[in-house]
């Protein structure tokens, strides 16, 4: 099958001279990997930034020129889809600390000419957003129509609204939180400990050697459990055995769920850097929108964007109460906020899988925002 050339996308990299981080360190220079879809209009009012979740990358939509893969949000971003690239100019960038083109612990430290590894500074969600702001400036956009994303992407949308209130007309935080709870930090810590206790980790200095594949795979297995729900696992695997009719009384991957988790774990190590896992989970754990403010509501005081907040009934990793905290704080400041809890059995994965309902919500919300923005530009 021929793929239309307009669907083929190539990740681009722009280098910025420096970026001052929350931890006090200034990174210099900094690479930012990004992709764009659709056309920026003449008034530059139709640009939307989509922010990827923990393990995502800049390749949100279309077909990758490098490896032919579809984008991580292929059902939501494209011609005629929720983020309609016939109408909007959509941007997605790999996060700071990542391992898919943007500067991270696997990048070469220009001073030592060796990979940063654990000498890479600890980065925050706000740092990631500041790098995205440099990219937006570089692309000549002063105000984004929207910033949207699920999970860690949702944290970035919230940080955008607070850090750059004049640069966003709307934000769409999906299945996310204004700060990590003890439970969320706990799961991340299990993942980190799994990596750091792998003898191949070598205090992070495994570059050029054997990466800590076992530790990273186990970390990913834990992650996948938290992304699903009891119901979705029951439906997908139940207690079914794989390639055998009876229990084998051994420790092979006999349950389908075991084999699935092992497969996802082993697949992950080929595309993800273990140190990036450490740094990015740490950034999520540090995230607390209310930090430095009297309350979450006070943090939202500066915001001017419209908000569309979405949560999912079966998401126990980023439960609805966390979205309600955001919405309640926004209403307390009388901010323009729409909120819906969508029914789903998929757990946290719902933000990637419940396409139809999210499409209706996002399309209507963006359409209204775009009309508001266009009207203001015209008048």
């Amino acid at each position, binding site marked *: 099958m021929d793929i239309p050339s307009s669907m083929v996308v190539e990740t681009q990299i722009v280098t910025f001279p420096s970026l001052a981080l929350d931890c006090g360190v200034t990174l210099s220079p900094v690479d930012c990997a990004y992709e764009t879809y659709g056309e920026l209009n003449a008034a530059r009012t139709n640009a939307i930034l989509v922010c990827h979740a923990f393990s995502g990358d800049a390749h949100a939509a279309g077909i990758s020129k490098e490896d032919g893969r579809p984008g991580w949000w292929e059902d939501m971003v494209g011609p005629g889809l929720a983020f309609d690239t016939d109408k909007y100019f959509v941007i997605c960038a790999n996060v700071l600390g990542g391992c898919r083109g943007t500067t991270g612990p696997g990048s070469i430290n220009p001073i030592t000419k060796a990979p940063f590894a654990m000498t890479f500074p600890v980065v925050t969600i706000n740092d990631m957003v500041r790098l995205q702001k440099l990219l937006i400036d570089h692309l000549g956009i002063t105000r984004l129509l929207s910033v949207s994303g699920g999970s860690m992407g949702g944290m970035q949308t919230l940080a955008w609204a607070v850090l750059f209130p004049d640069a966003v007309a709307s934000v769409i935080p999906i299945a996310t939180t204004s700060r990590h709870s003890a439970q969320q930090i706990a799961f991340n810590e299990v993942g980190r400990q799994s990596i750091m206790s792998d003898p191949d980790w070598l205090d992070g200095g495994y570059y050029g050697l054997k990466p800590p594949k076992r530790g990273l795979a186990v970390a990913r297995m834990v992650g996948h459990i938290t992304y699903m729900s009891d119901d979705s696992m029951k439906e997908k695997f139940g207690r079914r055995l794989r390639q055998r009719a009876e229990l084998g009384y051994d420790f092979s991957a006999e349950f389908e769920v075991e084999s699935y988790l092992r497969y996802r774990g082993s697949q992950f190590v080929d595309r993800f850097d273990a140190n990036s896992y450490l740094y990015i989970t740490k950034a999520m754990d540090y995230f607390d929108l209310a930090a430095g403010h009297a309350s979450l509501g006070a943090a939202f005081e500066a915001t001017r964007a419209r908000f569309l907040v979405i949560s999912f009934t079966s998401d126990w990793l980023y439960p609805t109460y966390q979205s309600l905290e955001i919405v*309640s704080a926004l209403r307390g400041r*009388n901010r323009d906020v*729409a*909120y*819906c809890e969508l029914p789903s059995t998929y757990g946290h994965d719902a933000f990637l899988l419940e396409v139809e309902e999210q499409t209706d919500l996002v*399309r*209507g*919300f963006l359409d*209204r925002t775009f009309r508001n923005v266009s009207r203001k530009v015209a008048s």
Partner: protein
Amino acid sequence: MKRPFVQNVLSRLDYKIITAIIPPGSRVLDLGCGDGELIAWLMEHKDVDARGVELLPDLVQAAIARGASVYQGDIETSLNDYPDQAFDYVILSQTLQQTRHPLQVLRNMLRVGKRAIVAFPNFGHYSVRLAHLFSGRAPRNRLFPYDWYDSPNLHFLTVDDFETLCAKENWPVERTIFLAGQREVERLPNLMAEVAVFVITSR
């Protein structure tokens, strides 16, 4: 799912009345806003900054899909979040009789809004009185179409009841509109009005 009462009895008349009351550019909160039809209309035609609260997820989705800023929640609790006098008008159309604590809801409406527009079916309408008198059973008619066991209505009030409450609570009534079918009722509203619309102010 539509609100059958609004659709069948009021048709578009409640919109006409409510939109006639609300000046362009106002800040409006519509409680129990359903699929956001009124909010969308107000935004389109009156350049109103309108928000909504609705409990049923399907209706919330439909409302957001048409661009309305609607919040999925219970009007009895979620009103507490809003700051004082955040809105020019707070609308409660055909929902007062379904709230658990109507007095609390009304007080909260007047706290967050400068004015409250309250529309409710009049339990004092002669057809209700007759239905009760002659059948000897819980009245069921066009205004109150539900069997007693699956009615969403928790409270039954008349025009006079509401006026008495306004006097007791010291709420200035700025305007009243009484409706029967598609026309306004001029006389004996407690007997003749199917639907009452009160505009009360927060002083």
